[in-house]
């Protein structure tokens, strides 16, 4: 049934596809890392009693969660250079380049989602634990750092990783600013050689294998966590 197809095209373009895959994985890891750090800060702001902290954080999260990711990537690519030019007043000022702009866009977008996950994690730690920390004389930051966040993160690891898998799939959107990730590389080869079916089948298979394997490991991790805390 595949008589008319040429699957050798995959073999021939492997080095190029591998470059794309490295880009996808690198962007995913960096954006996850940045997203968790920024998301934790946002979550701490959101659970704060002070309106000056929790209102802006809430607004940020709601704004980004109601915006398509592709728009956020666009904004950053086209608007940030304009803004930099406006602020610095230097018309020859260059933008920060598509990679950095995409990385910032992904980080900021993911941070909104991580913020909500981490906030739920913080709120899942029983009030009694916080009281016990306070009763020992720990301050709010100390109680957060040593008692609440370690337990929150432990509860959240599976869902944080699941969000990372979704992010990995979303990185394929960087084609809109001309970057070549794995999907972009496959797409370029497909169009250059007229091998659309072969390349897109291959790309789908690779995404499926990676994401399926990753989500299975998350499940196993989750099972081990719930076993050890029981």
């Amino acid at each position, binding site marked *: 049934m595949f008589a008319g197809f040429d699957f050798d095209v995959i073999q021939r373009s492997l080095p190029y596809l591998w470059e794309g895959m490295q880009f996808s994985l690198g962007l995913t890891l960096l954006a996850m890392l940045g997203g968790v750090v920024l998301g934790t800060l946002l979550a701490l702001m959101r659970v704060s009693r002070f309106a000056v902290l929790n209102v802006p954080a809430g607004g940020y999260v709601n704004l980004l969660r109601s915006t398509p990711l592709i728009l956020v990537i666009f904004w950053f690519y086209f608007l940030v250079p304009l803004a930099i030019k406006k602020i610095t007043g230097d018309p020859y000022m260059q933008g920060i380049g598509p990679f950095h702009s995409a990385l910032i866009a992904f980080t900021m977008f993911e941070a909104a989602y991580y913020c909500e996950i981490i906030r739920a994690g913080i709120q899942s730690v029983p009030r*009694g*634990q916080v*009281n*016990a*920390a*306070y*009763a*020992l*004389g*720990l*301050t709010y930051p*100390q109680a957060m750092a*040593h*008692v609440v966040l*370690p*337990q929150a993160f*432990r509860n959240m690891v599976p869902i944080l990783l699941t969000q990372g898998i979704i992010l990995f799939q979303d990185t394929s959107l960087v084609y809109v600013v001309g970057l070549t990730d794995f999907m972009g590389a496959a797409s370029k080869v497909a169009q250059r050689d007229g091998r659309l079916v072969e390349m897109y089948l291959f790309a789908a298979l690779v995404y499926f294998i990676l994401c399926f394997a990753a989500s299975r490991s998350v499940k196993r991790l989750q099972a081990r966590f719930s076993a050890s*805390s*029981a």
Partner: protein
Amino acid sequence: MINVSSVSKWYGDFQVLKDCTTHVEKGEVVVVCGPSGSGKSTLIKCVNGLEPFQRGEIVVNGVSVGDPRTNLPALRSRIGMVFQNFELFPHMTVTDNINLAQIKVLRRSPKEAAERSLALLTRVGLEAHAHKYPGELSGGQQQRVAIARALAMDPIAMLFDEPTSALDPEMINEVLDVMVKLAEDGMTMMVVTHEMGFARNVAHRVVFMDGGEIVEDTATEDFFGKPRSERAVQFLSKILHH
């Protein structure tokens, strides 16, 4: 040591504490008892500022708890508290539970803290469990670790919020034994409990609460011998006749 004067507290429209006044002197053991929902746990949580109150004043060791200028963490580090559900930190070993505040709050060196922790674990008979996690211990053992954790701060007073209510009956005594020893060593203690045997044998005074009010505040023998209020008589008849 602890002076509670005319403290009132509301949750919305509901008044949980009504004009409560009592005191605990240095070296004194005061048991707070009463039916559930009478406000006794709320009152004891007000003493170290875990619960805010709207009216009245609580002074601990000369420091006003309700004053917004009070450094609450510093005050709390001098008052030990033991909770109904132990509240050990599940992600840390027993030793790390006891070390944490010694290192972070009292600025003891890790070595000094570890020595103190081991000495206290020995005192509560749990030195063999130093490297276990709380989840690996029984309820009674966890509560004894919690007492050791509070003692590690060299507290000037100890608050107990129903320390045996979440325990299986066969574990209650091992915790009460530790508390009795503490009392014999002269520790200032405020204890919310239903353990009337402990109250009768150890307490100097009994505070009886009902409906958010302090109904009786008398010497232990008077409370058990000739309770003055009808509510205390009823409470005692319910709790003692089983």
